[in-house]
């Protein structure tokens, strides 16, 4: 195990070149070819994912992947088809890397989809077949999708005084405060070799869940007045947004403050930004921000800001989710336990936009500035 661990953690993902990733794919293929020519059942090894192999690294402050591996072999009826799909994805991603091309995960699916000779089946029947194989490969060659020159659909918006350089597009240099009210659409791949963070005068990064609040804050001139960079995730943060939050936080050394709805769903969005997700536990290292702080909404805000009239009832799903979250190791601190317990006791949730009940600008002129100034955060 130690040997494998050594191999896997030898270099941080960020510093690995496309050439090296391509070589790792070749090494895997070489080993498969050697096994085949010895008439041995060829193997493809990747990491087991999902809850059973997710570990909470308290010291590092994020979720990590355990050491459980899975071996996919060809001569196993249940694996044979996936083995074929894996080889195809390997060959195709290596081709992208060699030719410096990128593709969406939907595009690679369409590029590889065709009928298997002499059968009625397709190489991939749907994107739901190719997506997991891509994740298998990411884990097998110890990298992230972005390094395989693959990307998912972009989601999330950036606004504020931060200058970026797009190396893939005429080396365009732009400040995200000067792109109009809409800001910059965060691409799904924001790796340093594509998007360089040039500089910023901001003092902190504010991440907010809803696009509506994102727009409200811009309309009220909040980022300028409070010297902050604003990222709207539009619900659960996509990989690109998480990567960018991680990079802005680390490269510009800016505090990261998260603002979501006051309900289990919103709080989980925060926890994914901070500690990583179970699905991408292996990538937490370069996607999570363990130092992030949570500003709101909280159940305490309801009393503090007299929002009793604008709370919503928790749904059955909310209640179930809250109970699950209370059991997660990374929610085992008194602040979050108390927050979740209060929500469960009162069976209420409070949305960001409920603050409009006071005044439209209340969130920008009173709520956020006051809480951030007084550091009224949850860990």
């Amino acid at each position, binding site marked *: 195990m130690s040997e494998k661990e050594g191999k896997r953690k030898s270099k941080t993902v960020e510093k690995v070149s496309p050439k090296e990733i391509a070589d790792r*794919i*070749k090494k895997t*293929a*070489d080993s*498969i*070819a050697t096994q*085949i*020519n*010895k*008439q*041995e*059942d060829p193997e493809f090894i990747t990491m087991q994912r999902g809850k059973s192999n997710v570990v909470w690294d308290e010291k590092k402050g994020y979720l990590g992947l355990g050491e459980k591996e899975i071996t996919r072999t*060809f*001569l196993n*009826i249940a694996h*044979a*088809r996936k*083995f*074929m799909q894996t*080889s*195809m994805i*390997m*060959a195709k991603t*290596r*081709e992208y890397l060699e030719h410096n091309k990128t593709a969406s995960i939907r595009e690679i699916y369409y590029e590889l989809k065709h009928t*298997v*000779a*002499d*059968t009625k*089946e397709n*190489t991939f029947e749907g994107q739901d077949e190719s997506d997991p194989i891509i994740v298998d490969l990411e884990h097998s060659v110890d990298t992230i999708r972005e390094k395989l020159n693959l990307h998912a659909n972009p989601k999330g918006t950036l606004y504020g005084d931060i200058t970026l350089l797009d190396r893939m597009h005429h080396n365009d240099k732009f400040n995200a405060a000067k792109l109009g009210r809409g800001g910059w659409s965060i691409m799904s791949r924001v790796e340093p070799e594509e998007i360089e963070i040039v500089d910023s005068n901001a003092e902190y990064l504010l991440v907010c869940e809803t696009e509506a609040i994102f727009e409200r804050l811009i309309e009220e001139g909040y980022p300028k007045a409070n010297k902050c960079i604003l990222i709207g995730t539009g619900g659960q943060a996509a990989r690109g947004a998480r990567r960018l939050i991680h990079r802005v936080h680390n490269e510009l050394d800016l505090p990261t403050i998260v603002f979501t709805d006051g309900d289990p769903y919103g709080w989980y969005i925060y926890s994914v930004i901070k500690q990583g997700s179970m699905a991408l536990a292996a990538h937490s290292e370069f996607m999570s921000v363990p130092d992030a702080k949570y500003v709101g909404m909280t159940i305490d805000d309801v009393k503090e800001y007299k929002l009793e009239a604008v709370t919503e009832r928790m749904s059955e799903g909310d209640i179930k989710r809250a109970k699950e979250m209370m059991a997660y190791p990374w929610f085992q601190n008194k602040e979050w336990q108390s927050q979740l317990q209060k929500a469960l006791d009162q069976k209420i949730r409070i949305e960001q936009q409920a603050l409009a009940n006071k005044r439209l600008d209340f969130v920008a002129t009173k709520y956020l500035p006051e809480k951030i100034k007084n550091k009224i955060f949850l860990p």
Partner: protein
Amino acid sequence: MAEEKKGRKNGDEESEIIVKAATNLEKEFKEHSVAEFFKKNKQMLGLYGKVRTLTMVVHEYVTNSLDACEETGILPNIDVKLDELGEEYYEITVTDNGPGVSKENVGKAFGKLLAGTKFHRMMQSRGQQGIGASGCTMLGQMTTGKPSKIISGKEGQKPFALEMVIDPKNNEPKISNYKELEKTFRGTSVQAKFKGVLYRDSDQGPLEYLKRTAIANPHAQLSFRDPMGQKFVFKRTHNTLPERPEEIKPHPKGTTVDDVLSYCKTTKGRTVSTFLTNDFDRMGAKGIEEIKKKVHFDMNKDPKTLTWEEAEEIVKAFKSIDFIAPSTDALRPIGEEQINKSLQSIVQPEFLTVLTRKPSVYAGGYPFQVEIAIAYGGSAGRKTGEQTQMEIMRFANRVPLLFDAGNCALTKAVQTIEWKRYDIKDPENSPVTVFINFISVHIPYTGAGKQAIADEEEVLEEIRLALMQTGRKAGIYISHKRREAENQQKRLMFYKYIPEICKAISTITKVSEDTLKKNMEKMVLTKLKLEEQQDAKQRAETEKVLAADENSFIVEQKPEKKKEETGKGKK
């Protein structure tokens, strides 16, 4: 009772009423001749359902022909034609190569209802399904007003043609248009018209009936032309007539009070003792001694004067005394070889196993025997659309039973078998035909329709044993076959992915695609071969276990003959 409620009538008045009622009944009975009775009791005679009635008619004529041929030692050739004359209106023509009927007897054969009953004969016979050929004549004239046409010729005599109806008042044939024919013909041909019946090519239609009759009578050749003009021939597969069944004396254990009283009427014995000794199977001096001790009347009295109560005492005594089991010599199975041939010819399965069990006895007094065959693959099973499901062919003394399957012990026995054990995982979806011929001198039908056999414990158990014995053999074949198919499927399943894998791996590594391909294919074959060897080892062990299992509960086992034959490898 109404009279009782009124409570005023004295004994005399009551008896007067009863006498009056009885007289009326008698009068009514006379007025309503047997034919009238027939008319009123169609249901009881099994003549319900348009399809069923037509099948029944076919059965009566064909049974008549088969019996006539067998009794005179002729290998039967029977031809059945059906013509649709109108809506629910058909004409049936059945021609055989039998001995023919004389002019004197033709009326009795086709024009007199319920004549010549064989009711009390203890003998393996096809038996009437209810109405007989005369019943068909009656049914035809009742529904169409038309007579039946009969042509018959005996060896060395001129054949004749005539038309016949039955006079419903006195149950006598009325013959018209009699003429002698100037041609040579031996056999009997009957043509009759029926309304309110319907032809269907279904499980219960005439075609299925004839097909099954052919299966159970390999010595007969049956041909059929359906109303659409399609012709079917079920060829003779065995050229020897079955031995005639013997009539045996009734065994005391299977006798009812009513039986005793009716035997009394025909006995030659002058005392009850001699009557019992002469007319019953296994009745010796010791038996008579014991009966004497148990009854309260003089056993020397004339049996013709036996009262119901006395007969009851005799039957009660029969029940309490141990008799030797009845002789089983009278039974005539079809035979394993014969069933094998006919099923191969008619069902054309891939695999077939046949078993004729040794005779046994049910209810203490009736000898019976069971013949089972399991056919798998090929055209076996019943096709329903895309699916093929298990088909159960039931026979009683070679007569196909097409109706009342749910009530029949034969069906029940099949349903109690755990077919999974014999690799028939889903009987509802397997190409299997189960053939069961139940043979006895007395078939325990559940009702007057004579289409279902009652679940006598010994019968059920015997059929189950036979099914298990044959099922085991079928299972071995089926599992072997399934494994072969699975292996083939597995190979293809691996093979189909090889080209894509080799192409991809070769693109990355530049290792020759062809070499990779060859090696992968070899790898697959080696793996499958290994699996097969392991399988074979396991199978050998399973078979050993099965064999041991068999000995543990099958007491009477026939020496295994080589009967299984793989068909022509149909898909």
